[in-house]
């Protein structure tokens, strides 16, 4: 009695139907249209599936959001500026300064959220986050325990929270390896924000975050000499990989990063081992890489937040272009060559 799917082959007919649909969806269906008996059904769907949120939830969320915004405010502005600068190959500011600003941003965000989420109850606006933190027993334990918790969080898919949790733990330590790790994890967090535009990229990034955190958890505390430098380079490399958005299975193998103590140090920078140098180690090979976080992921994987603001209308938003994401490039990702990432993929300004 109805029409088969391909009935709409003719342009004129589709156009009429499109107009009817717009009226139907606007709540003013035309009488006797082809879809007019759907009108009450749409009404039911809307009524049933869009409940007004309880006033208590609204108030709760408003408080949490307002305080989160206030806590983020000043560092956020700084970080946005810094992110823009970092996207340019020639760094306008030292990596260390950028790291400090970004870390402050991340920390304040986490602390605020954790506090706000702490008192959330099921059904509350913050309950989901609350449970994410609870699941790992936030707020207690040594740095090592924190890192293990972060790995667990990452494995559950909470990549952003995992990185923040790890950074928070590491910031309490003073060793060079901790500082190198904080630098790398901050880079990772930044890349993460920019790579989650497609499901595949998000999955790839999530796996890479888990790999990175596992590496940090297993090797943290190696502060001295060659091994310390290798740790700094390894962790920086793994962090940069997150921005690459391709084959996560390659990165899954921890040997991608040289294991400290394996004796394969091939880049002993003078004076490596203090914080500034570790930060440089992260940044120098990344001259192309920092950039590639923005444009290395084919299509529009980079920088979604920026893409969306301003236009938001029909231009290239990010979500779901499965055919252009990771799988196609799986085979040409060199698994065992940590230094080979940038040139091939980051060159599409």
């Amino acid at each position: 009695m109805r029409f088969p799917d391909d009935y709409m082959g003719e342009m004129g007919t589709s156009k009429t139907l499109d107009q009817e649909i717009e009226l139907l969806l606007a709540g003013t269906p035309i009488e006797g249209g082809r879809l007019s008996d759907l009108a009450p059904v749409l009404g039911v769907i809307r009524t049933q599936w869009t409940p007004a949120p309880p006033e208590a939830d609204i108030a709760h969320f408003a408080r949490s959001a307002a305080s989160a915004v206030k806590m983020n405010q000043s560092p956020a502005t700084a970080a946005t500026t810094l992110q823009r600068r970092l996207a340019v190959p020639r760094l306008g500011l030292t990596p260390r300064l950028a790291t400090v600003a970004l870390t402050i941003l991340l920390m304040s965000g986490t602390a605020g959220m954790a506090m706000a989420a702490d008192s959330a109850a099921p059904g509350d606006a913050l309950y989901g986050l609350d449970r994410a933190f609870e699941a790992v027993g936030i707020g207690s334990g040594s740095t090592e325990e924190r890192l293990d918790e972060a790995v667990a969080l990452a494995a559950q898919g909470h990549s952003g929270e995992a990185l923040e949790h790890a950074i928070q733990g590491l910031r309490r330590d003073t060793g060079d390896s901790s500082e190198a790790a904080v630098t790398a994890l901050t880079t990772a967090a930044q890349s993460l924000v920019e790579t989650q535009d497609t499901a595949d990229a998000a999955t790839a990034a999530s796996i890479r975050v888990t790999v990175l955190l596992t590496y940090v958890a297993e090797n943290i505390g190696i502060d001295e000499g060659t091994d310390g430098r290798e740790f700094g380079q390894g962790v920086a490399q793994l962090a940069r990989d997150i921005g690459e958005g391709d084959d996560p299975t390659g990165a899954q193998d921890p040997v991608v990063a040289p294991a400290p103590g394996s004796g394969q140090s091939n880049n002993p920078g003078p004076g490596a081992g203090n914080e500034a140098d570790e930060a440089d180690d992260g940044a120098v090979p990344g001259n192309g890489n920092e950039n590639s976080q923005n444009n290395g992921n084919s299509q529009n994987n980079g920088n979604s937040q920026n893409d969306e603001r301003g236009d938001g209308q029909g231009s290239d938003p990010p979500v779901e272009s499965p055919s252009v994401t990771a799988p196609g490039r799986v085979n040409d990702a060199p698994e065992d060559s940590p230094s080979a990432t940038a040139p091939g993929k980051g060159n599409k300004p």
Partner: protein
Amino acid sequence: MSSPHTSIANPRDQDFETRLRAAKDGAEWAWAEIYRDLAGTVTGYLANRGAAEPEDLTSETFLQIARNISTFDGGESAFRSWVFVIAHRRLIDSRRARQRRPETLTLSDPMGGAVGDVEEEALNRLTTVELQAAFEKLSESQCDVLALRIIGQLTLEETASVLGKRVGAVKAAQRRGLLALSQHLDLDGVTR
């Protein structure tokens, strides 16, 4: 042809601008209005698209919005799109985390259906069951489009923006989807 309900008048734009600025300044009232406006549709969209815990995902979505609000710049329409882009991404993340393809609809408890009298509720329930069956016959992209348009109450352009499709593709998907829905539903038996 313009429809009366989809165009946005200027005063509203100004309202939104004021609200957005206040939200960026951390004003509670602005966040309350944003949440009141959009949380219901976001939760509904997530639930309709098979989120296991739509309320949790809604919380995460709005927290992310609060965290990233300083990076947003644009009008109300762009804002709605942005919110649904984040919700959509969260949804996909959570599906991945569960490592299996979701059912199109999990209608175990659609939001408690807080509507009127018993009779009407019975009607709603019946329709819901039928809807589930009908929706399950649609393609993923038809479901995405219809959920954003019907439940999310987004415009054609906003929907296209959220899904990364062209407007023409959204039109085609909603045509096919709605025709199929109407075909699969025995509407005579359900709605008077």
